[in-house]
């Protein structure tokens, strides 16, 4: 799913959750009233009469209520007037990292250790104060929640508190990524533009022919850099929109890798990195779009070269079985921390912003790789150890050999 649709989904989810939450307070109150009536009927009923515990309607509505609560994407916690938790739905258990059965019957602070949430629940119970705002909750991971506390008046003049939480962690992450991306792209576009502007102005003032030639070369190089970035952006937009026109053909990945490696070899030797291709002699053919697959390999090599210090090595390897072909690009570079590893294929994601600025990464290359590989029915994964290097592996289905 693309980030844009994901963002829309989250907005829909958030709105949906709040609509559900608004109705929920009323439903819970209704549910409690039915339960309360049932108890009263029960206690007043003479012993000889079979217990007329509510109508089947009540029971089914209570079951419906339980099912609704459990399935709700918003987290819901209900706290009794004495401060004990009486209900925790699955979403709340996941958001707060607690086990529902351990939380129920105890004070909220004993399972959900947030002073702020505890304070809001206490205010709802004591004075019926309702609040709704962002709250950062830290357990094993940090979560950004939008939490509403509601007070539900009971018949006996006491109140229950209802906590409704919507997880905005992912949404906040996406917002941050987008902001970072915009600032990164702006920087990437601005620095070549500034250089071009300065050199053009110098040329306009009149420079000697040797300097002029050098300036023109620089201008051409900076322009290429900007074109490459804009093309990356356009590629990704095209890939994500799904309007991809793949021209399928039988492609020998061994030959393709060798070509890609030789196209990068000058750059690698300038950087002092040993770059080599290891390919099987009998070829490894898959059905795919040659240009797109070349872009996959070039992007992976580019990524490896940018993240490997001088003196290191980058190896592109093809291995094949009867049914599958794997392309590995392995480097002895800086590696990726395990917490960053699951995110490297995300659009806009850059592990180290300051490094990316100096090496010219846009945070788009690997996202493009993932899209193209998946458009070929393949898969891509990354393994890495910090300080030791990284391995990116693409798997494709092989073309049956004739």
């Amino acid at each position, binding site marked *: 799913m693309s980030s844009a649709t994901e963002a829309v989904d989250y907005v829909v989810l958030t709105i949906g959750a709040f609509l559900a939450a608004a109705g929920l307070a009323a439903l819970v109150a209704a549910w409690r009233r039915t339960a309360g009536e049932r108890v009263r009927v029960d206690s007043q009923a003479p012993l000889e009469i079979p217990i007329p515990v509510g109508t089947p309607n009540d029971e089914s509505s209570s079951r419906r209520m339980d099912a609704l609560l459990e399935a709700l994407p918003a987290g819901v916690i209900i706290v009794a007037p004495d401060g004990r938790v009486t209900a925790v739905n699955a979403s709340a258990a996941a958001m707060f990292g607690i086990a529902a059965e351990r939380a129920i019957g105890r004070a909220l602070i*004993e399972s959900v*250790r*947030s*002073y702020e949430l505890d304070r809001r629940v206490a205010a709802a119970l004591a004075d019926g104060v309702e609040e709704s705002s962002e709250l950062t909750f830290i357990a094993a991971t940090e979560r950004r929640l939008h939490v509403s506390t509601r007070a539900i008046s009971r018949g006996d003049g006491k109140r229950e508190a209802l906590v409704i939480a919507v997880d905005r962690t992912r949404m906040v992450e996406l917002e941050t990524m987008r902001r970072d991306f915009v600032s990164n792209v702006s920087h990437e576009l601005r620095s070549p533009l500034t250089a071009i502007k300065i050199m053009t102005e110098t040329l306009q003032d009149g420079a000697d022919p040797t300097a002029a030639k050098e300036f023109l070369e620089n201008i051409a190089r900076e322009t290429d850099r900007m074109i490459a970035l804009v093309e990356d952006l356009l590629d990704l937009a095209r890939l994500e929109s799904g309007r991809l026109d793949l021209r399928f053909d039988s492609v020998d990945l061994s030959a393709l890798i060798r070509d890609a490696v030789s196209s990068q070899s000058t750059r690698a030797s300038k950087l002092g990195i040993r770059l080599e291709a290891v390919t099987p002699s009998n070829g490894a053919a898959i059905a795919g779009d040659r240009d797109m697959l070349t872009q996959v390999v070039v992007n992976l090599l580019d990524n490896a070269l940018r993240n490997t210090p001088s003196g290191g090595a980058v190896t592109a390897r093809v291995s094949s079985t009867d049914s599958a072909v794997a392309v590995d690009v392995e480097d002895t570079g800086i590696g990726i921390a395990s917490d960053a590893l699951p995110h490297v294929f995300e659009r806009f994601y850059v592990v180290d912003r300051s490094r990316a600025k100096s090496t010219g990464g846009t945070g788009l290359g690997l996202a493009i790789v993932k899209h193209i590989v998946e458009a070929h029915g393949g898969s891509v994964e990354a393994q890495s150890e910090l300080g030791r290097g990284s391995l990116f592996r693409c798997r494709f289905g092989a073309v049956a050999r004739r």
Partner: protein
Amino acid sequence: MGRENFHRILNETQQDVLRMGSLVEEAINRAVDALGRSDVALADDILRFDDIIDDLNVRIETNCLNLLALQQPMASDLRTIAAMLDIVIDLERIGDHACDIAQITKSLAEEPPLKPLIDIPRMAAKAREMLRESLDAFANHDAAIAHLVPQKDDEVDRLYRAVFKELIEFMARDPKAISRGSNLILVALYLERIADHATNICERVVYMVEGVPKKLKRSVVEINRAVAHSDTLLNPS
């Protein structure tokens, strides 16, 4: 005060300890966040936090002393009250260290950052994890967790030594970095202390549950060795 009342107050006091604990946890988190972003407003927030922490501290101590004086509790209840009296001292110190870090943030905010913080946030995360787990152990009367937490102190100590060494080298190279560098060393020291306080809390929990006082682990940060090392850096004769 009846027996039922006694247990109600005892329970509420235990919950107050957890309230104080969660405030202190958040204070550390914000303190390091504010330091990383040079956020003076956030640092001021933490200083205000400290008043609530102090109020809770007073309430817990008063309740504990009342329970002791009026009820003569025995066995497990007595140990729980004794443990709480100790734990609030550790929590209060941790809160103070969060304030210390906030003060440093405010004084460092006027100068350009020395270097991006890497190991200090790691130390903070580890120390906070230790504190969180020590409070989990307290909340659930779980001695098993309490025994495990202090093992994580080694990692905090290792990071502390790494930060210390790195900053000393920085300052040796550039005397202009001395005021910022020494402030950051203090931050690391506070975080190291926080981890030690979490270890203390675990010891109290073990005593509370098992009834046997036990020293779990005392981290000895080799400051002398680190200082000796800095001498060789500064006077490479």
